[in-house]
């Protein structure tokens, strides 16, 4: 069953002089939960519409199930879309909305009934079959849209920010339900979102986009732990950035003179040469914060003053101003083991310590 299910090759699309997609290529595996993640306006919807057949690319091609579909109209493609606005037909009942694709195919009435109820039960809406869309809540409309998009048994389901119109709590719930539906039907999901939490929690792989470009494709862990660029690092979660020239290098160990933080030791695959200007990043939860000087070798230590502690129950976020004037963010989890540590408060002098291996080089400019 393995193999590429959707292949986007060198797709470009412009609206007038504005390039919405610039030479985008993606390979999406069969059965994958694949997310397109990026800020608003970066071209996610446009890419989805190119795959669905609503937009013709200016250049490049799209393959679904190994078959070339570039130029085919949407009704000829084996994929279906869950629209951001749901796009339920207001004049039809829930039942008839879901039955619509079958009516087009002139499926016999008995089979229609069976298939529609099968899909309504998948989204737990059997009881609402005779209601009109206007009588449903946002979450229910969402489910109808999903059932309707699945009834043709497409090989790919395209979802364009399907949860954006729901309130935060319902969004979490629907997300888990979507994940469960994905497991049940086993087809490829291409999920568009601008919410990194959503993408991280359900995706098999994520493509991070910005300004019409795909910046990085990888598993949630890869994207989070090993961002390929400063943009990706900043867009996914919070992060700390160190910038400056390389002082020395031994193997994978690079020493960098970071602005406001002094020398920082980085252990990363990316090779930088002496004199290059590099940008390295580390996640806030990977930095240890303490009142006393930490005793460990091969570790970076930066001194600073707590500028702002932000308590939020399960953790505290500290914003620390270093002696050199840089600002770093640290998360400290309130786990049982940390109870003995003396409390760190506003204006306290602190030591920040972190391992060279937890740093990632994201940018490198030849010096």
């Amino acid at each position, binding site marked *: 069953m393995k193999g590429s299910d959707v292949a986007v090759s060198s797709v470009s699309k412009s609206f007038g002089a504005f390039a919405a997609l610039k030479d985008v290529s993606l390979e999406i595996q069969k059965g994958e939960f694949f997310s397109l993640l990026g800020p608003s306006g970066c071209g996610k919807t446009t890419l989805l519409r190119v795959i669905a057949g609503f937009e013709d690319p200016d250049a490049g091609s799209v393959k679904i199930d190994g078959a070339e579909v570039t130029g085919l109209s949407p009704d000829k493609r084996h994929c279906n879309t869950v*629209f951001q606005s749901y*796009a339920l*037909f207001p*004049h039809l009942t829930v039942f008839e909305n879901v039955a619509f694709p079958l009516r*087009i*195919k002139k499926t016999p009435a008995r089979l229609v009934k069976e298939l529609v109820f099968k899909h309504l039960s998948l989204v737990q809406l059997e009881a609402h079959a005779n209601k009109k869309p206007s009588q449903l809540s946002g979450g229910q409309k969402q489910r109808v849209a999903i059932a309707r998009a699945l009834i043709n048994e497409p090989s790919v389901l395209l979802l364009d920010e399907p949860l954006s119109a729901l309130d935060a709590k319902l969004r979490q719930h629907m997300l888990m339900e979507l994940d469960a539906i994905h497991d049940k039907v086993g087809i490829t999901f291409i999920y568009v979102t601008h919410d990194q939490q959503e993408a991280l929690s359900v995706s098999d792989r994520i493509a991070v986009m910005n300004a019409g470009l795909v910046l990085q494709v990888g598993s949630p862990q890869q994207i989070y732990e090993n961002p390929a660029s400063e943009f990706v690092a900043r867009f996914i979660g919070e992060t700390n950035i160190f910038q400056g020239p390389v002082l020395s290098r031994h193997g994978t160990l690079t020493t960098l003179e970071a602005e406001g933080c002094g020398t920082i030791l980085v252990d990363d695959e990316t090779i930088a040469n002496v004199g290059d200007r590099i940008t390295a990043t580390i996640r806030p939860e990977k930095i240890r914060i303490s009142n006393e000087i930490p005793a460990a070798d091969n570790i970076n230590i930066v001194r600073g003053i707590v500028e702002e502690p932000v308590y939020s129950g399960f953790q505290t976020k500290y914003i620390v101003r270093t002696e050199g004037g840089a600002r770093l963010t640290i998360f400290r989890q309130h786990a049982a083991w940390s109870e003995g540590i003396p409390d760190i408060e506003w204006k306290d002098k602190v030591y920040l310590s972190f391992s060279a291996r937890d740093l990632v080089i994201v940018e490198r400019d030849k010096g």
Partner: protein
Amino acid sequence: MKKNYGTAYAAPQALWLTVFFAAPLLIIIAYSFLKKGLYGGVELEFSLRAYTDMANPTLLRVALKTLWVSLAATVATILIALPCGYSVARSQNQAIRLFLVIVPFWTNFLVRIYAWIAILGNEGFLNQALRFLGFRPEGYQFLYNQGAVILVLVYMYLPYAILPLFSTIDKFDFTLLEAARDLGASRMQSYIKVMLPNIRGGVVTAVLFTFIPIFGAYAVPLLIGGKDSYMLGNVIADQVTKTRNWPLAAAISMTVTLITAIAVFLFALKKPKEHLEVADVDPASIGHDLLVSKVRVKTMHKKGGER
């Protein structure tokens, strides 16, 4: 308690309708039950003669033809107006296209009919162009037949159909068309199965706005049609100006008005509720428009007719 000014605001309209709509209508009703005067007008004596006179085969034939022509012209108008309204609604510069739809209203109705005569006449633009292209030198007879009447009627009432269709299509969510295509519908299927049911209100309004005035057409069949193109409006006018049987003219007007009003009422009642919202049209005003247009025909005939 908040004071309700509704009645006060409605008063001028009520007065207007009473004077210019209800009163003429009552006069027509009254005339239809009076005895015919010798040289036109009426005598103050009750008579049902006008209604018994209506039952003659000639009148029935004209009535059926009027119905047929009106239906044909209405269907053609709607079929042309649908894509027009759609293209205006989806256009980037709606204002310019709307303006183009409305422009003809700036020219008098009769002037536009004569413009068509100038186009279709034996020495008209069309024949000259065809002659230039080497077709029959003696030209073709485009005018004075049923087809010409329908053509010009469609032209005249197209804007009345385009405007209500545009306003409902403009409110239509075009994503629904994409959803339909996505779910396997062809382009045509998406229009018929998804767009049409959702713009039903606009279609109903457009049908009423074209069918009703066309049913009462007078000037177009008179000037564009031949002797066999006579419609009910022409018969009524003849009864007033030539045969001088005013009670009969009134009786025909009343009957037509009544039948159309009932039809419209049933039509409006049949509309499902949610489509009424989309339509933005008050069924009462449709009926009212019908009556007004009838009365207008009637009063214009008295003045010698400018329609």
